[in-house]
């Protein structure tokens, strides 16, 4: 949406300052009656004197789709319907002021309560049928999943628009259309009013005339489109400090005008500007946005870079230094350092390692699970890293051996005692895959690693489903059980299509502290 607002601004950049199109007074009214609670808001405008060739029509449709995708939040928050006004029939009634008035009605309809012929179709369908039988209907059906009645717009002939899904074919806009009715429905009045303003500005830029529409919400009456110009007070100093340059007030006013704004200087020492912001600039929330506009008009690439004279002391975290030191030691022991994904599958993390989350063994833990995974290969966060290394062995059986691989990385498991409910840690894993790999090879390297960090290693026998019984030990560092070392179970090796013995270990990086 910001892109559209900005490109409109650039379009009007030829003219200086704020431009607001003139509008003619309203002939048409939108009556709001019994609308679905989920979509209470409506707005609109009449456009006359349109001259649309194929390109102009395309660009209007593109603008509509861009607005739907961005501000309209894929039509959930706001949806635009543009109709050929000549095809609409609203009975002309003399208003209190003697002027003729015509109206359409925004209301709710039972899902099967009426029929119309939707765009790109030639059959009469009920709104419910549109959602199941029309491609556009299928695409947006989810938006109406919770609605009891569906949004509907009627003229004197009948149902002609089914927002936010699709317009009726009767009022379809073509290159022959000379007058348009623009209607927007949504969940937020401000949002659809801004979207409406953007559409009106775009059509005004093509030489059309905008005419007001009255929106009748029971006892409240709105005149739309809303072209209200907002004002923000912007301090001169903020503009200067943000850009890092000194500016004269005249310059700031000039730059603001070139940005499609109007700026009026106020005050002496505490110089500020009252800046007027046109209605299509939905991206301006704060004075800093005005300062940014002034910077753009000045040309950011005109600014001379400077290194900030701010003195600070750099440094690494203790974990980061420890990880780097442990990695360096592993590499010195001959391991190829690897980098695997933190997301994996239950099959790779547990089943193919013969492990179950309920086991009392290293790597066994309730995994954090992902709600809508990218694929079945990435459904959980890994609870240990050894399976990742075994998968790398599996995918590299055509590469030369020995394959001595190590990884220091992330592992996690569900843990109610932590802030986020997930206990995250750094883990050290290594495998030795070679024709003569043994428990002793793995333990020797593990012992060397512990020795380098001056921590005490013991390896009491243990059982672990991923390892051969009698050839697995608990990794006990400074008296605490922190991992496992052993020869991988033949069933694990064979399941990964590896044809050489594999020994390995895994333990918590923090144990080396």
């Amino acid at each position: 949406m910001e892109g559209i607002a900005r490109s409109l601004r650039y379009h009007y950049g030829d003219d200086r300052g704020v431009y607001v199109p003139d509008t003619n007074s309203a002939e048409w009214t939108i009556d709001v009656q019994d609308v679905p609670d989920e979509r209470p808001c409506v707005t609109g405008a009449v456009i006359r004197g349109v001259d649309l060739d194929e390109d102009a029509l395309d660009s209007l449709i593109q603008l509509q789709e861009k607005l739907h995708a961005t501000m309209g939040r894929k039509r959930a928050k706001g949806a635009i319907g543009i109709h050929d006004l000549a095809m609409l029939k609203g009975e002309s009634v003399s208003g209190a002021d003697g002027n003729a008035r015509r109206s359409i009605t925004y209301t709710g309809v039972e899902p099967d309560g009426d029929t119309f012929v939707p765009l790109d179709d030639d059959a009469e369908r009920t709104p419910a049928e549109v959602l199941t039988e029309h491609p556009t209907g299928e695409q947006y059906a989810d938006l109406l999943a919770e609605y009891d009645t569906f949004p509907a717009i009627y003229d004197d002939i009948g149902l002609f628009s089914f927002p936010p899904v699709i317009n009726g074919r009767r009022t379809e806009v073509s290159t022959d259309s000379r007058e348009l009715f623009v209607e927007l429905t949504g969940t937020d009045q401000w949002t659809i009013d801004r979207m409406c303003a953007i559409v009106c500005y775009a059509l005004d830029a093509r030489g059309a005339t905008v005419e007001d529409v009255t929106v009748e919400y029971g006892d409240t009456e709105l005149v739309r489109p809303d072209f209200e110009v907002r004002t923000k007070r912007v301090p001169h100093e903020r503009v200067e400090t943000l850009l890092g340059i000194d500016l004269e007030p005249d310059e700031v006013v000039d730059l603001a005008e070139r940005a499609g704004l109007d700026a009026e200087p106020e005050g002496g020492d505490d110089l500020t500007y009252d800046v007027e912001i046109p209605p299509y600039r939905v991206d301006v929330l704060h004075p800093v946005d005005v300062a940014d506009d002034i910077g753009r008009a000045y040309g950011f690439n005109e600014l001379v870079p400077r290194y900030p004279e701010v003195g600070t002391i750099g440094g690494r975290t203790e974990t980061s230094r420890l990880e780097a030191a442990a990695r360096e030691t592993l590499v010195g022991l001959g391991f190829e350092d690897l980098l695997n994904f933190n997301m994996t599958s239950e099959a790779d993390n547990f089943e193919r390692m013969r492990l179950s989350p309920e086991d009392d063994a290293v790597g066994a833990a309730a995994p954090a699970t992902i709600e809508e995974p990218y694929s079945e290969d990435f459904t959980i966060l890994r609870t240990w890293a050894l399976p990742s290394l075994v998968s790398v062995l599996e995918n590299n059986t055509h590469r030369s051996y020995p394959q001595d691989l190590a990884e220091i990385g992330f592992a996690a498991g569900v843990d109610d005692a932590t802030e986020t409910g997930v206990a995250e840690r750094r883990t050290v894993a290594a495998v030795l895959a070679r024709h003569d790999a043994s428990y002793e090879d793995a333990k020797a390297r593990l012992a060397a690693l512990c020795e380098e960090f001056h921590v005490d290693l013991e390896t009491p026998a243990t059982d672990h489903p991923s390892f051969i019984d009698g050839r697995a030990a608990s990794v006990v560092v400074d008296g605490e059980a922190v991992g496992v070392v052993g020869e991988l179970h033949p069933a694990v090796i064979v399941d990964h299509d590896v044809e050489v013995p594999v020994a390995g270990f895994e333990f918590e990086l923090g144990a080396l502290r």
Partner: protein
Amino acid sequence: MLASGEWRDAEFADYNVEADAAEYTPGKTHVLRQAAERVKDVLVGMGFQEMEGPHVDADFYINDCLFMPQDHPARNHWDRFALEQPEKIDDLPDDLVERVERAHREGVGSEGDGYHSPWDEEFARSLALRGHTTSLTARYLSGVAGADVEPPQRYFSVEKAYRNDTLDATHLLEFFQIEGWVMAEDLSVRDLMGTFREFYSQFGITDIEFKPTYNPYTEPSFELFGRHPETGELIEIGNSGIFRPEMLEPLGVEADVMAWGLALERLLMLVTGFEDIRDVHGTLCDLEFLRDAEVVY
């Protein structure tokens, strides 16, 4: 022979010293880890302190603290990896939640406007894999991480972030984001430009170009482009900006903060010219490729 002195009379047969020796596969630090170390070295040298924090975090820290509206397209379920189990964070700081919600609804300051978007604390409490490491920045700036954040400060991290994106040669679901920020009393666009120029010049990338862009939590915002040292091609190398008041005020920050983020992989590709990230990162990696990769220093 050496001890007995026999070597004095020995005849040493000639070797073919030009013949190939047996191949030796050395231990080796992973090429992306090497690149990360290099980046960390540069940033520490520039006075940056390292940040750390959770990969799984509440949307509150990943998005709400960054003034990302809850109905922003990037926050929908297609783009993020929401957690099924566990689903929500138990505790968020009440006062911080209140200030952040107010900024979303009303904006900050007498001249500020809020978003016309719904805001629901339950959504803020939902857990996800962080889509960027700016969640760490939010934790540090808000004081939740327990660090000193009186200006001036410089902080960085080179850590994993997660994106629900299509897998291809340049995109994985997991990537390393280089995140950095500088806090000081008055920071301008010129300071931001000067900092990047210095950082990238350390990697041989000069002629940085700044293209103004839009980002919900920075203003001004810039995409950074750098010229490839070999091909001369202009490549996007990062995103940057000055944090909005709507982000900083609720976090309790009164000074200016400028920040940037870029993917480590992109920097590495730019510097080394390698082409397919899948050879390097993940269980489908090619050991041969990793063994042959040139050392990064």
